[in-house]
């Protein structure tokens, strides 16, 4: 069966699809997260060196991965938005930014609470923490630029360009921070030499990643629906969509 993808580049046909997908991924997110938390908090054994504090990685690692991955996805939709001038691609990029910022903030937050018992400090200028912090700034910059421009179409293209410039910079920032870190700090604080993970821990991590990923997809699709309705409120199909409630 050949799917006509172009059909879904129009908000009117994407809106109901996004609703269905958001529900599916919302359910998946709940199922995976509950299973992941069960494996992570109950099945997985206590770590020999870190005690029970390590269990925060079941939230920390998936959010850190998602923070980076969502930036790539956002840059992809931004490139489509600039290249083909499609409204929906820009709306997808717009819908992804807050979730990406949330993931970066959660990764930093959970990392701080893992660092306190393990490293003895909430914040160390570790390479990954520093680059995640800069990634959070990039997300916030894109959101702020969006809010500062009144014309949504202009905001679309400005944010898309900024996201692409940021995407070129993210690897440079990442490697420069890593290099800076190795020059300035001993490798005493390093996770790269972490002991081998127990199989159940890895399982829990992967299941939680599936849960967080599904959550991101569900929330982004729900948000893109809200954006579509807000932006297309002048269009007839949106008017008929909201008419039953609005008429009374």
């Amino acid at each position: 069966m050949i799917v006509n993808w172009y059909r879904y580049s129009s908000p009117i046909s994407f809106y109901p699809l996004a609703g269905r997908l958001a529900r599916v991924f919302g359910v998946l997110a709940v199922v995976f997260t509950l299973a992941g938390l069960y494996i992570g908090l109950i099945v997985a054994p206590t770590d020999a060196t870190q005690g029970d504090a390590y269990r925060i990685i079941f939230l920390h690692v998936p959010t850190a991965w998602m923070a980076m991955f969502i930036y790539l996805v956002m840059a992809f939709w931004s490139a489509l938005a600039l290249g083909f001038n499609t409204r929906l691609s820009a709306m997808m990029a717009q819908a992804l930014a807050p979730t990406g910022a949330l993931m970066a903030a959660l990764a930093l937050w959970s990392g701080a609470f893992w660092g306190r018992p393990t490293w003895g400090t909430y914040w160390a200028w570790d390479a990954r923490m520093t680059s995640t912090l800069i990634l959070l700034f990039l997300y916030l910059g894109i959101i702020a630029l969006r809010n500062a421009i009144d014309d949504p179409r202009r905001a679309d293209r400005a944010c898309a360009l900024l996201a692409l410039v940021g995407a070129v910079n993210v690897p440079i920032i990442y490697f420069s921070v890593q290099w800076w870190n190795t020059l300035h700090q001993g490798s005493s604080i390093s996770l790269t030499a972490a002991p081998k993970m127990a199989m159940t821990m890895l399982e829990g991590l992967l299941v939680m990643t599936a849960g967080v990923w599904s959550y991101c997809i569900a929330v982004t699709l729900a948000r893109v629906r809200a954006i579509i309705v807000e932006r297309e409120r002048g269009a007839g199909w949106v008017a008929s969509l909201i008419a039953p409630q609005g008429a009374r």
Partner: protein
Amino acid sequence: MSPTAVPQPDAASVSAAFAWALGRDLRIALRSKAELGVQLMFYVIVVSLFPLASSPSREVLATLGPGVLWTAALLASLLSLPRLFAADFGDGTLEQIALSPRPLPALVSGKMAAHWLTTGLPVAVLAPLLGEQYAMDGTELWILAAALLLGTPILSLLGAIGATLTLGARGGGSLLALLVLPLYAPVLIFGAGAVDAVRSGLSAGPQLSLLAAGLLLALVGTPFAVAAAVRIALD
């Protein structure tokens, strides 16, 4: 947009466009010398505040020095960015520039070059003098100047993208800082790292090479990004 086909830009029209924009912006800058002086004074004052905030001891200042001189250079570049396009955007000149048949990337490159010559270059020349205040010696001062000469053009180039994107947007300066400063991070790391490397007896070669590589990348990429951003701003 226009029904007539625009001729493909050749080398002559590219360099003519670059030279025209460079000459125009330099002329404007040199006719308001006071403004340039104020920007330079900003750099001097920020750099002079750090010893007051920490300690006048030579060891502390030697540790802080490269970071302070570079952070202040970032802030000075940031403060001068609105000058790049805001006035031309406000009085409609930018629209005329974008409408001209000359290639827009070359025109904005000329403006960015003028911006660097009037802001980045003076900072790079002045920094070794201020380095004296931070207990730097001969080689370190040379490396500081070399790193700033390679790094400040990157600041002007990357900053130009942010300056164009925020044209006509609310929030002005602080929004610009939020967009641009994270992108400046690698320049800061390599720039301040060059002086640190010399101080700890290593070669500054890797840092300077990486700065030069970054400069080349920015030189190739940003004119097109800024031209695209100008078209977005004029939509």
